[in-house]
């Protein structure tokens, strides 16, 4: 990240697409985590992505169902998937992170469905 740039967290980071180190989409920035320390200004410590975080943003029963589904079948067993801000390389139209999407819980379902898809001819 360039020094001294001001970033509008809600406008420019929240809900933008997350891409990994080679530009593969790995979800969206579904949440932001602020760290509060006595006497210090708040610091963005993590971005969050995935169903657990999304479930908390939904009102009504839908959020509850999604949270239950994420606990039961999700790749992180009901914990939000957090990416330390230090891994964020760039904030543009996409938020680029220094991670391999393939090796993160963001692609948990991509892999699970992949086993099913692989059985179908032509895949």
């Amino acid at each position: 990240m360039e020094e001294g740039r001001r970033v509008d967290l809600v406008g420019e980071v929240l809900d933008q697409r997350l891409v990994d180190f080679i530009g593969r989409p790995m979800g969206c920035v579904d949440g932001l985590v602020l760290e509060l320390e006595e006497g210090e200004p708040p610091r963005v410590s993590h971005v969050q992505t995935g169903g657990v975080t999304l479930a908390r943003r939904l009102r009504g029963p839908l959020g509850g169902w999604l949270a239950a589904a994420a606990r039961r079948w999700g790749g992180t067993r009901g914990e939000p998937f957090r990416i330390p801000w230090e891994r964020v390389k760039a904030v543009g139209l996409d938020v680029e992170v220094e991670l391999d999407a393939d090796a993160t819980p963001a692609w948990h379902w991509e892999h699970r469905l992949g086993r099913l898809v692989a059985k179908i001819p032509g895949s």
Partner: protein
Amino acid sequence: MKLSPRQLIEVALGVLTSVGGYLDVGAVATSAQAGAEFGFRHLWVLGLGTLVVIFLVEMSGRFAAVSGHPLRAALRERLGFNFFVATSAAEMVVGVLVLASEIGGIALALQLVTGVSYRWWALPVGLLVWALLWNGTFGVLEKGVALLGLVTLAFFFAAVRLHPPLGEVARGVIPGGGGHDAAHYWFIAVAILGALISPYLLWFYSSGAVEDHWSASDVPTNRMVAVVGMGFGSVVAASVLIVAAMVFLPRGIVVDDYAQIALGLTTALEGKLGFYLFAASLGIACVGAALEAALAMAYVLAQGLGWNWGESLKPRRATRFSVTYTAALLVSVVPMLLGVDPLALTVFSMALTAVALPIAIFPFLVLMNDERYLGRHRNGRLSNAVVIAVIALAFVLAVVTIPLQLKGG
């Protein structure tokens, strides 16, 4: 405006593809009904719908070409997750009904040719559409639909051969009312607009621009495709209306099944050829529209949730995306299996599309003016004025559709 050879090919291809996208089961059904019952008096509605579609298609293409982000992805990015969930839920419901109608259109085309009931064709047709999506790439499907779509020009030749009275046709282009049966006239007008202004076409088109790697240099190409392609499509739709007006109106036939529309072409083209041409036109236009509608649902979910997506990727490289269109097709086959009347379902889904239109169009106003995405290619005053007018029109449609359906449907 000078175009390179590659851009010219893009334009030609885009024009042909948009006939497939434009002329779907809804456009055929509503235009035929309009012509049969009110003569040429709905032609101006086709013109208005086409004008709206040209502007919206141009914007969705420009947005994707300049930003590399399709509209639906940007919708979540700019308007937030809750807005995305609410609009997507509505669109999935409408999408399934539209897809079911298109499957019904293909199944009926097969029924016309073979005499075997459309209910038996629902599953094979669903499987065919799925196999095309599963095995095809974006480029192959685009070119295939484009070439086969030329068959729909049969409607145009039929319309010319019937020698419609040009004075009356010209009067139909001027906005007017329905006369004796106003509620029914306006219900059909709303259904025509719902059939022409289909949001799935916009999501499909802007995703296609990303799949084809368009860039800011394709903005002029995009404009040409939008204007000529949609204009061309509207000529075919107007031809359906004219054929219906010439063949059915004098005989007092109300169109309530597709076999009658086929009969119309048979009369127009004097022979069995017209019948088969109609079946082929209906079938092919609906295959194109079914491919687009199924993909559009997968695009909407994948882009809003940040999955990797693309019809050009092998299914195993975008598994959530390909499973989504598979599931959409599975659900959409059910109504036809149960024997729901395809024409009734079509008119109902077109009216429902009209109800859901305001929420689909509203984001254009926000997104098309966003400097981060569009830079200097943002909407000018004219385009913004058009968007505001379309949102106003969409609200009117949404409010009047249900009362009109009860009174005139």
